[in-house]
């Protein structure tokens, strides 16, 4: 027994297939779960959703619960959010995932209140800088299917017009890909808007300030949750940006096995960036589990290698989400650490701006 993938939309478009024909790419060391997931298409091009080991009966029950929530969404979110969170943590039923994500992130609301906006964006030419960058990335981001190429281009294109200051960031490509596998282009676009503006503001802006800040927050949380790993990383000067950039910017879509990506995204859409910190800490702990492994890493290269090449069977979705919820890190800890790092950066900036002024004065006098 298997469930055909969530959106009838995807099946309809992908049935003529072609995915399997190009599977030679897959064995070619191509990176990313997105591709791994495409390989789940069966011989008829129908996507088989092997979503963990949830028995069908249970899945049906969960679907009913979710359908009920959709009926009174506002009420559930305002009055029984805890329950919604719990259900997201258990995993959203694949057949309703696309809808749930759009409800959770508010993109449905955005789309309903911006009728025609997306088409309007598509009609605009856009900044040639971004358009050229997007074009260059299309064949590598969406290598497997023409439809993805065409639609992936339009989604990110529209975003550069929606937010011309931010423009196109390469890390948005994998995100758009995951969204496009679940929903039509316009819906995916508004989801992307929500992620970039509400969930991870500043992540994709020039300079990547927000990601760097979160890297420092992650490091601070590691100090609290895993002191020996923290000491090791600090000693070898393994800066967070060396391993967490892709994890956070692509919301683990290039890091985890596909079923784990979906579970992480289920939680992320409900709880936001905190989920990324929890998962990241778990991955670091899986990669560097004990002192004997740390001893195998005499320099930063071995350490980074351990963090970046974790066997996928260790990143299985059930284990990952359970472990991430068992961490001795509370939401309050995260908020405190965030505040601490914001203050630290502010102080550093002030010290820097004071520095040159002094020398200026000296020159004057």
């Amino acid at each position, binding site marked *: 027994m298997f469930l055909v993938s969530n959106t009838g939309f995807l099946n309809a478009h992908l049935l003529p297939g072609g995915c399997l024909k190009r599977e030679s*790419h897959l064995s*070619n*060391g*191509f*990176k*990313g779960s997105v591709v791994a997931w495409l390989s789940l298409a069966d011989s008829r091009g129908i996507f088989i959703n092997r979503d963990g080991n949830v028995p069908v009966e249970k899945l049906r029950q969960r679907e009913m619960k979710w359908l009920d929530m959709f009926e009174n969404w506002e009420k559930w979110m305002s009055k029984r959010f805890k329950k919604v969170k719990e259900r997201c943590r258990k995993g959203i039923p694949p057949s309703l995932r696309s809808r749930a994500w759009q409800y959770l992130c508010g993109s449905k609301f955005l789309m309903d209140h911006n009728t025609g906006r997306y088409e309007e964006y598509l009609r605009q030419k856009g900044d040639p800088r971004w358009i050229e*960058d997007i074009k*260059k*990335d299309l*064949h*590598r*981001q969406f*290598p497997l299917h023409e439809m993805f190429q065409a639609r992936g281009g339009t989604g990110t294109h529209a975003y550069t017009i929606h937010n011309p200051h931010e423009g196109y*960031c*390469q*890390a948005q*490509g*994998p995100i758009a890909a995951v969204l496009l596998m679940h929903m039509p282009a316009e819906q995916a676009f508004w989801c992307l808007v929500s992620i970039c503006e509400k969930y991870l503001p500043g992540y*994709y*802006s*020039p*300079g*990547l*300030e927000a*990601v*760097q800040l979160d890297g420092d927050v992650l490091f601070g949380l590691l100090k609290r949750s895993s002191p020996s790993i923290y000491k090791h990383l600090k000693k070898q000067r393994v*800066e967070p*940006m*060396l391993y967490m*950039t*892709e994890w956070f*910017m*692509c919301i683990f879509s*290039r890091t985890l096995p596909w079923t784990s990506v979906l579970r992480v995204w289920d939680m992320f859409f409900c709880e936001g960036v905190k989920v990324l910190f929890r998962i990241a800490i778990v991955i670091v702990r899986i990669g560097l589990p004990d002192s004997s492994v740390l001893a195998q890493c*005499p320099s930063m*290269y071995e350490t*980074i*290698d351990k963090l*970046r090449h974790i066997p996928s069977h260790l990143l299985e979705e059930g284990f990952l989400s359970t472990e991430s919820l068992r961490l001795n890190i509370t939401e309050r800890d995260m908020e405190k650490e965030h505040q601490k790092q914001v203050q630290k950066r502010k102080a550093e900036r002030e010290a820097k701006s004071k520095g040159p002024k002094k020398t200026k004065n000296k020159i004057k006098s």
Partner: protein
Amino acid sequence: MAAGPYNYSYIFKYIIIGDMGVGKSCLLHQFTEKKFMADCPHTIGVEFGTRIIEVSGQKIKLQIWDTAGQERFRAVTRSYYRGAAGALMVYDITRRSTYNHLSSWLTDARNLTNPNTVIFLIGNKSDLEAQRDVTYEEAKQFADENECSAKTGDNVEDAFLDTAKKIYQNIQDGSLDLNAAESGVQHKPATPRNPLNTDQTPSKEGCAC
């Protein structure tokens, strides 16, 4: 795989820089895996690769940092230049804009590495001769350069090896001081230690053999 902890005498750190889409990751993949990867996923942040090569009978481990080319990642990737012994600066011979940006990459490479860092210019995609947008002579004037193809593997080896030879030469003639911080070169004892004696930690090697 490895016979012992130190089956090489030196480690050189390389960094690969250049505009997005010029084929930096493909070059790295071609060099470390000896295979061409079509549709290389773009690099978000930094990737790493290693390979052990031989120069003048010495085994050298190359530790190669492959950086994201998109402009907005530059604020981050700039911090990865520190301590590089070699910098491979890549452009795409079929896209002039990637060549025009070289001076800005070169400025970064000069400012953020040490004076002895060997900088090598690489014109990639030489298999696309028909679409050539930058002549060899023009680029030759810009620097001592090497045209190569990550696709066919032409000259890719040479680009990495010649850089290593130059670094090794700098070590031999004393212009590169191994003891200097951030020289980008680490010296390891050439002979594996007694594998049973695992307690032994690698001592900082100061003397030249």
